[in-house]
């Protein structure tokens, strides 16, 4: 819920700065390793946008893949969890380099 309130705050600041009055589509980036339940987020989106400049807006969620860097192999690999081993040498854990995003990426506005 707080995440969605953060989103509203960002939208409002941008509405003021960039002079738009209506948000038609919200594009969020929620990485696969961010620990956020996308379904719960969709539910909260409805509740939180009611009565706001984004009422009735479409929510699009992009889910970037988890990525980890192995210091031994000096290579980045896709991972499903924070504790997936390096597919080359087996080292655990890798340094997380992607997939933890929780961002408002773009807004379709008018």
């Amino acid at each position: 819920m707080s995440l969605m309130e953060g989103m509203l705050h960002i939208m409002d600041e941008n509405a003021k700065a960039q002079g738009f009055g209506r948000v038609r589509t919200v594009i969020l980036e929620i990485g696969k390793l961010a620990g956020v339940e996308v379904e719960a987020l969709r539910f909260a989106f409805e509740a939180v946008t009611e009565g706001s400049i984004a009422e009735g807006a479409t929510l699009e969620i992009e889910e970037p893949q988890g990525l980890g860097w192995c210091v031994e192999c000096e290579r980045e690999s896709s991972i499903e969890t924070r504790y997936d081993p390096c597919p080359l040498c087996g080292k655990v854990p890798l340094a997380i380099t992607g997939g933890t995003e929780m961002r408002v990426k773009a807004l379709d506005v008018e």
Partner: protein
Amino acid sequence: MCTTCGCGQGEGRIEGDEHPHAHADGMIHSHAHMHEHGIGQRRMVQIERNLLEKNDAFAKLNREQFAEKGIFVLNLVSSPGSGKTTLLTATIERLKDRLAIAVIEGDQQTTHDADRIRATGVPAIQINTGKGCHLDAHMVGHAAERLNLPQDSVLMIENVGNLVCPSAFDLGEAHKVVILSVTEGEDKPLKYPDMFAAADLLVLNKVDLLPYLKFEVDQCLDFAHRVNPRLKIIRTSAVTGEGMAAWTDWIESGARAAKNSRSEAPSKPPCHA
């Protein structure tokens, strides 16, 4: 109305506070600007901003104020029932003659835990988060201000019992401490990797019950280190006192470090006024 964030309502309520609070992430009322702009051209606006930035800004403020007063702050997280409140009261009994301690209790509904803490004689304040499943930096800033923490004290924050959401919310603490009891199952670190990755210390509690359980301590700790190789581990029983000395030593050395690095700068006016 809160002058920091402009919020006037929400679900969180700080005990003794005349106005309700919630949401570090800011109910800066979304409809406020609705009528200020005409309908413009339809277009795509690139934003690229973090959903947590408002919380993080409040956390930074908190951290600066804690540093200025040399206050050592711990954020205790766990599932419900792992023993956070029991551990806190046992800790306070051992340390209260040597350190000034205060507690912020996060709970969805009751003030029961804050009452348990106050029974030990140290100040405590309850934050009821209502439907909110974690504390945020804004609520904690207000509660800390109300506690009027003395210089070089220790502030312990019991977060809402939940191993998911609190991991993302920085409160301005020095360390997140995750408490796991041996009645919960060895695989918790793999089920909630974000929390174990965010924590600096794992307190494995209720070790007095180990003889009655099939809990593989080594396997659990191995799972925890798989997620976070730097995680420090202390085994405790808040009931028998086993391991409590290691835990209180760790707190005392943290408190000393906070005191020693206290910035000598003249204190600024409170930002959460």
